């Protein structure tokens, strides 16, 4: 039903809740993986896992918010949906501050749960896509020669070719050649796109 490479990772220490969620999401066509504790999840976690996390806030051992923080430290990209027994405002605020994708109260409205999962999935896909594009752009930037890079830095500050030429001690014509080549290499055809990519260049 849904993209099969996405998984809902359920972390809840209550076996019944975990099992029920697994069943429901399974029936709805989601791939699920279940963990009884935050520690279990951290132990098994792989960077390439995709999908989203469903974490109960109140668990024995590591609680949901700690797990969320640990995952952020590990630069885990999985969006986190926090579930809680009581709608505690401070907890919710904390969860959102730590970039939680959603915050659901138990017992939850299942349509909201599905919506939250789908939103988390698309958010994850978006993040992943953006990162991929970023990685791609970085790879392209690596292909530039030092001179081309210099030209790029000056172009994106909004200077004209005839102003750049004296700065680099080369002819206007040469600047034009460098500029055309670097734009070709980066796969952009306007300065705006060039600016966007150049910002990735630290």
């Amino acid at each position, binding site marked *: 039903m849904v993209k099969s490479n996405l998984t809902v990772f359920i972390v809840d220490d*209550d076996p*019944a809740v975990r099992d*029920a969620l697994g*069943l429901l999401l399974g029936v709805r066509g989601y791939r699920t993986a279940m963990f009884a504790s935050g520690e279990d999840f951290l132990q098994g976690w792989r960077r390439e896992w995709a999908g989203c996390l469903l974490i109960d806030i109140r*668990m024995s051992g590591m609680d949901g918010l700690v797990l969320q923080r640990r995952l952020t430290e590990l630069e885990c990209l999985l969006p986190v949906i926090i579930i809680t027994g*009581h709608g505690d405002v401070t907890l919710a605020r904390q969860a959102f501050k730590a970039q939680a994708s959603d915050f659901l109260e138990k*017992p939850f409205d299942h349509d909201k749960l599905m919506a939250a999962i789908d939103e988390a999935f698309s958010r994850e896909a978006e993040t992943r896509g953006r990162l991929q594009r970023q990685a791609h752009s970085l790879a392209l930037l690596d292909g530039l020669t030092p001179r081309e890079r210099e030209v790029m830095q000056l172009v994106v500050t909004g200077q004209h070719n005839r102003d750049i030429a004296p700065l680099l001690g080369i002819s206007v014509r040469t600047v034009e050649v460098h500029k055309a080549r670097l734009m070709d290499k980066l796969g952009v055809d306007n300065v705006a796109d060039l600016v966007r990519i150049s910002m990735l260049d630290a």
Partner: protein
Amino acid sequence: MESGVLITQYGMACRTDEMHNAGQSENNPMRPSLPRYLPYPAFVGLYLLFDWATYIDPLYGLNITPWNPDPALGLVFWLIYGRKAALPWFIALLAGECLVRGLPAGWPLTLLSSAWLIVGYGTIGEALRRRFSSGDIFDNRRRLAIWAVIVLAGTMLNALGYISLLSLTGKIPPGEWGAAALRFGIGDMVGLVVSMPLIWMLVSERGRARLKETVWRWETLGYLALAMFVLWSVFGSIVRSDYKHFYFLFLPLIWAASRQGLYGTALMVFVLQLGIITMVKWSHAVNLQFYELQLLDAVLALVGFFIGIVVDELRKVADELKHTMRLAAAGEMAAALAHELNQPLTALSTYGKACEYLLERGESGDILKSAIGHMIVESGRAAEVVRRLRDFFRTGAMQLEIIEASALIAGISRQFTPQFHEHGIELVVGQMPALAVNADRLQMELVLRNLLANAQDAVLAVPRGLRRIELSVERLGGGRLRLSIEDSGAGISSTLAARLFEPFVSSKASGLGLGLVLSRAIVEAHGGKLWAEVGNHGIFRFILPLAGTTDSQGEYGEK
């Protein structure tokens, strides 16, 4: 006014404030319907009976006797009927002079003096009516005091006027004016003080019901018997010893007042008065000192009523407090149970939703069957929680089970982990010996939750990094365990310690101040005790009896 009067079973009447109660009994098919005018002749008859029965030891053959309960009847009548009571009362007075005393003063003076008395009594009646226009006279100390003042002042003024009248017309020797006024005044006053509360209780349906409910027990016979015995033994010596032993009568009085409140006292005082009168008649111990005895009796009655009312008030407050405590306990328990209920409910609704999809897909095999099986298990889990809540608050019953102390602590500290984490509080759980208690898990959790919440509040007052809460359990001799919760907060001062376990004493803005009271009550119900120690950091400890030795295979270890 007529429409506000309802005639009750005994021919007496209730005022509008009693309508509510009387109205209820109107539905009662057993209630005979009496004609409206009946209370008036009934009053006159009863008044005459009282007059006749208490016409003892008269002065100069006039109606100057040591105990006049008849005005009490009259005043209650007046309180109910207002000025309409004047005429029947006047008739009753005249009839008394005629039938009981044979008109010693002659018609004109009798008419005049009776009219004077009606004006006097009427004034007292109106004063009482104004003060107590709504509700009961005898329901708190202030009202009782106002009643006593009105009655005392009223009867004395009335007596002055009445005796002056008789004295002016030469019915009383000129030199005896003061003594006669005193005797008449005391007679009326004692009559009112001693009889009015009881008569007042007897005229209303509600009062009768409460009186019966209060005094209809064996204990009543006990204090009445004691009273009679004391009276009988004291009386023999009274004439010779100037009432030296009269104070012994306080014993049965205090018994009645402290056990049955005002209602028991009213009965007691009335019976005591009857006893005194009987003793006086029977022993022929009639002399002037009888009036002093009556005065003592009036004081005895007032003291009794005040004790009785204080007892009633205390009991009422205690009942209210108990009720509030129960509500608060229910609130705390409900909060504790919300989490427990939430888990099975979440699982239930999730399984339910899954079943819906399974059915939509046309599934009917094992998956569906097992999901439904899970649902049944989960609803059982939820029902168990609800049942325990209900059991506890309906019967106060505890559901004892063997609990590992370590499991209990693990469970509760888990619930606090997020909060502690948020506030940077370090929770240290000491070495847990394998000890088990026989306790109600929910109640014990409530206690621990309260203590941990208090500790949390205490450490929040100190800067981060210094916030520390320590939980430890140790085994004590005599098969007991001691659980300590220590925090790095400011600790308990000796002044605070003294008031710590009083209900509604809270150092928190949002607290009801019941947490510790409840916790202590729970621990004591488990046969243990809970206390706070004065120190430079917070220390709370409680002791519970051990459930006997257990194998150390605690499930806590696995978690």
